[in-house]
Every structure is written in structure tokens, then in C-alpha cells.
């Protein structure tokens, strides 16, 4: 049941993404509104599925009151939920429906990826948490980091839109797309605001991990691949913020930098799992 609901949520995200893409090419406000409704419906169904999973997860006493994100399926599902929610907030506040085409694919890909994995590779069965993970930090550390990832995914989408808009204006032959996308400077500003919000969240998340590690393993930092890569990610975004505020990097250049940051996020989230023992919920020995 949980998986069926989750598949519905994934389908709704895909539908919202398609609506966003259609809106990109047809000037029709109703499609944009449809996209928003599909997205909100997706979030609601997703929350329901998450709630069901929570109930099952908490049936195991040692899991009680911890978030079910210790498996890759759980983590990816939660991440796509976060991306969808962050975008719903951004969209609700700025009414930039057009950005859906650049952000929602991430939510859809995350959800479909999680569903695919659950269907063909298993991983939805619920285990008791390893003793090291039975800590209140389990509810904070990964959540905070995934919130940061979701914000960065939005920043990435905004950055992509900026590149498109910049090329449009620069070409001197703007197509209709140019009139749909927000202004270059506004996109630049939004990209910056996402990252300036995401960066402290990421930093705090990493520090929390250190504190947890100190409690669990007796050391604050152990150069585990996940730790290393999250540090690299944080450094890239710090460099972005630095170059933007002091180096006068804006527009295309700073967007490239933020995209490098997002590539690091993806690698930290997915790639590193194959390397890391301690954070390896993908290799499912976490």
C-alpha cells in the first residue's frame, strides 16, 4: 500500500514535470496552475505514503521514533519530497511557474528512481536500525542535510534557467522562451538566495554529523568518503558565495560554480555510498 501510494506520488511528480515542460512551450497559464496542483497533490500523496512507512517502521521497537531514511529508498524518497516541498514554497512565493521545468525533473527523477529501486532491487523491507544509528541525531543530521540538498537542487534549476535566458538575450534573436523566463538578474538573485540559504543548512548538518560521530565513534571527523565529499561540497559553495560577494562573479560564471557544487551534492549523495562504509546505506551495510 505504501509503495502504491509512493508510485502515485512519483507519477504525480512526473505529470507535474510534464505540465511544467508543456508550459515552457505553450503560453497557457492554466497549464502552470495545473502543474502546481499536481505538485501539491504529489506532495500530499507522498506524505501519506511516508506516514504509512513510518507506521511500519515504528512497529520495530528499536526503530521507534526515528525517521525511516536509513535505506537508499527511504533517503531518496525523502529527498524528492524535500525538493518538491522547497519548490512548492518557492513557486508559491514567487509565482515563477516556468522554473518548474528546471526544478521538478529532480523531484520526479528522485521519486521514480526510488520507486524503480524499490521495485526491482528491493530495499523497502524494514530492518531494525543498527545500534549506532539509534540516536536522536538520526532524525536531525540526515534530514538537515537533505533539506540542504533540496535547496541546492532548486538553486541548480534556477541556474539552468539563467543560462538559458542569458543565451536567449545574448543571441539577439530571442524566442518565445525569453518572454516566459524571469529576468537574468532576478534569476541570478534567486540562485544566490537559494545557495545563501542552503549553505548554512549544509554546514550545520555536517557539524551535527561530527557531534554525532564524536558520541558514537569517539571522533569528530574521520575522513570517511562521505565526510570528505560533503566537506568538498561545502567548500565549493563557500567559494561560490565568496566569489559572488567579493570577486564580482555573477551570472554565467557563478552559475557554473554552483553547478559544480550541485555535482558534488549528487556525488556525495549517490556515488559515495559505494565507497563509504559508515555512510553506506546504498551498499546497505549502514
Amino acid at each position, binding site marked *: 500500500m505504501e509503495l502504491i501510494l509512493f508510485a502515485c506520488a512519483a507519477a504525480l511528480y512526473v505529470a507535474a514535470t510534464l505540465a511544467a515542460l508543456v508550459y515552457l512551450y505553450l503560453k497557457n497559464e492554466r497549464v502552470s496552475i495545473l502543474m502546481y496542483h499536481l505538485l501539491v497533490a504529489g506532495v500530499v500523496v507522498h506524505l501519506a505514503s511516508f506516514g504509512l512507512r513510518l507506521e511500519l517502521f515504528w512497529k520495530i521497537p528499536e526503530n521507534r521514533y526515528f525517521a525511516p531514511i536509513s535505506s537508499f529508498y527511504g533517503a531518496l524518497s525523502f529527498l524528492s519530497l524535500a525538493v518538491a516541498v522547497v519548490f512548492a514554497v518557492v513557486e508559491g512565493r514567487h509565482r515563477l511557474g516556468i522554473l518548474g521545468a528546471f526544478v521538478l525533473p529532480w523531484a520526479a527523477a528522485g521519486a521514480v528512481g526510488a520507486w524503480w529501486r524499490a521495485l526491482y532491487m528491493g530495499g523497502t523491507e524494514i530492518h531494525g536500525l543498527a545500534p549506532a544509528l539509534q540516536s536522536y541525531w538520526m532524525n536531525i543530521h540526515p534530514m538537515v542535510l537533505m533539506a540542504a540538498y533540496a535547496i541546492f537542487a532548486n538553486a541548480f534549476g534556477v541556474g539552468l534557467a539563467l543560462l538559458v535566458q542569458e543565451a536567449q538575450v545574448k543571441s539577439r534573436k530571442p524566442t518565445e522562451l525569453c*518572454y516566459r523566463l524571469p529576468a537574468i538578474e532576478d534569476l541570478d538573485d534567486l540562485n544566490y538566495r537559494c545557495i545563501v540559504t542552503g549553505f548554512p543548512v549544509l554546514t550545520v548538518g555536517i557539524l551535527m554529523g561530527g557531534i554525532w560521530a564524536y558520541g558514537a565513534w569517539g571522533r569528530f571527523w574521520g575522513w570517511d568518503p562521505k565526510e570528505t565529499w560533503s566537506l568538498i561540497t561545502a567548500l565549493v559553495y563557500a567559494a561560490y558565495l565568496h566569489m559572488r560577494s567579493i570577486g*564580482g562573479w555573477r*551570472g554565467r560564471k557563478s552559475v557554473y560554480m554552483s553547478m559544480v557544487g550541485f555535482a558534488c551534492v549528487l556525488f556525495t549523495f549517490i556515488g559515495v555510498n559505494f565507497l563509504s562504509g559508515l555512510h553506506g546505506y546504498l551498499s546497505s551495510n549502514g
Partner: protein
Amino acid sequence: MIVLRGVSHKTCPVELRERLAARPAAEALSALREQGLAEAVVLSTCNRFEVYAAGDGDDPGEAVGRALEAWAGRPMGDAAYAKSGAAVVEHLFRVAGGLESLVVGEGEILGQVKTAYEAARQAQMTGKLTNVLFQRAAYVGKLVRSETAVAVGHTSVASVAVDLAERIFGSLHEKEVLILGAGEMAELTSRHLSSCKIGRLVVANRTYERGVELAARFHGEAVRWEEFPARLRTADIVIGSTGSDRPVVTRRTVEEALPSRMGRSLFFIDIAMPRDIEEAVNDLDHVYLYSLADLEGVVKDNVARRRGELEKAARLVETKAAEFAAWERTVGTGAEASLGHVRKTPRGGQGEKS
């Protein structure tokens, strides 16, 4: 039965249109009343002069035609068109939607249709048929513009330039515009810009006094010609309109200003002939250069795009005209069909009874 007699830019030379349009609406309406017409609306714009009328007489069209010829002072011949019944409804919907306009989809006509109706209403020359028809026309006019792309994209060089500036900066509220030159083009541009909300207008001209004069007229600031390269550090939009036969803004000048701009966008609009701004400026990061030819290219694309939407818009108008015809047939039969939006008007409004 509703009839239409009129002339437009498609059928009639401009002198005749001007002669017809010279007549104030109120006067035209009272003349039509004297002809025995109960309902009449006179739509008079630069490009068309049309009389929509309804009456019980043998042929309201005849009366309108006579009035038109009297005003024009000569027989109309092929210059005027005559329509009646459903064709009138479709025509008015097309006009309101901007499908009959010189520039397809232009927005002014919708306001003119409303004004024409309002004038008729005040002259007590409207009745049930014209009331519903013109309210419906205003609605269809809006619908056509929102449901199709006939009104998308600006169609004048000046508004395209402003639009592009907004694509770059978003709001132009706090933006600084630097105008190079103080000639006729500079003046036109300043006038256009002062109607948009911009932060500050700065004029740099070789003859300082003329720059001061122009700046004073548009509440701007004048700077000496030698100072303009320094102004490139703060300006957001630069308009080249000098009479110089060589570019006055070179790639080097811009490059020197860039470091202190901290990556803010810089938009050059070159409306000078020959050009004022070196082409290579567009290769710089955060710098966008549009020449007059580029802007004209955008206008041409926009006009073409609007034309491409004509068929879709025409289909929409046809549907709406058919709806109206169905309503008209039911009037007076006691089982009046609903027209959707008409029902939404507040109940108990006595305004229409006049």
C-alpha cells in the same frame, strides 16, 4: 436584426477615414437617432469608422449608409462594407480581438470598442441587443488575447527595447540610463523612457549645453562628454544615438569599466546610424548589445508570430460568434439561452435599463 456599415484601413483611403472620424461620437449618434434608429454604436479609430445599428425599420442598414454618405460628402461605393446578422457579430468580435488591426493583436482597439459602447450607452442609444453584443465583444477580445498568442511580444522598436531591458534586469525602477547624444533620436528615446519607470536618466553630449537642455526636459542629469566612459561603471542601460561617423563606445572603453561593475549586467542599445557602439562589445560577459537592426528583427519575429496565431484566434471568434447567434435566436422566445459570462453580472443592476 443588427447591421454594420463601415470603412477600415483595408477598404478605404486615409482622407475619407479622416473625414468620417472628424465627427464627434455624440453628434454622429444623434444624427443616427434622427434617422429613426433605436440602437447604434459608432466605433471610430485611426484605422476604422464603423456604425453598428439595430432598429425595427424596414432596413436599418439603408439609414446608416445614408448617414455615412452624408458625413463623407460623397458616395461610398466599394470603400464601405455592409454586413448584417451573424456576420456583424463575428466582425465585431474579430475587431475587438485585434484580428482586424493593422498590427495584429494590438490592445488599444479593445479600449476603443468599450469607449464607443459607453458613448452610445450615455446617449441612450443602446438596447438589449447592443448591450449584450458589446459586453460580449469586450469579453471575447480579452479571451482571444489570453487564449492565443496574437498579443504576445511587442511590435514597436521602442517597446521591444524596454521589454528586453526587463528580460535582463527585471524591474527598471532603480536602473540608470545613459544616453549618448542629444539629437532627435535621443529626445524620442528620453520621452519613451520617461513614461516607463526608470531610476535615473543621464545625458552625455559633445555639446554640453544641448545635453543640459535635453536632460532638463526629462528630469535627468547632464554630464560632459569626456565623463561618459566613467559613467559606464554605474549605468545599467546605455543608448547610443550620436551622429558620430565612428563608434564612440569601443570594446576597450567597456572592458575598462567592467571590473568596477561587479558583474552587473550592462545593456547597450545602439539606435545610431552609423552605429555608435562597437559590435565586439557583445562578446563581453554580462554585456548585451542590440542595434536598431536587431530590434527591428525582434519586431519582425513578433509580428510574424502573431500572424501565425491568427487562424487559431479566428476559430475561437467563430465559436463565440456562434454562441452569440444561438443566444440571439432564443431572445424573445421566453427560453433565453445563457451566455455564461452575462449571467455573472451583478443582479439588480438597474444601469442597463435606461
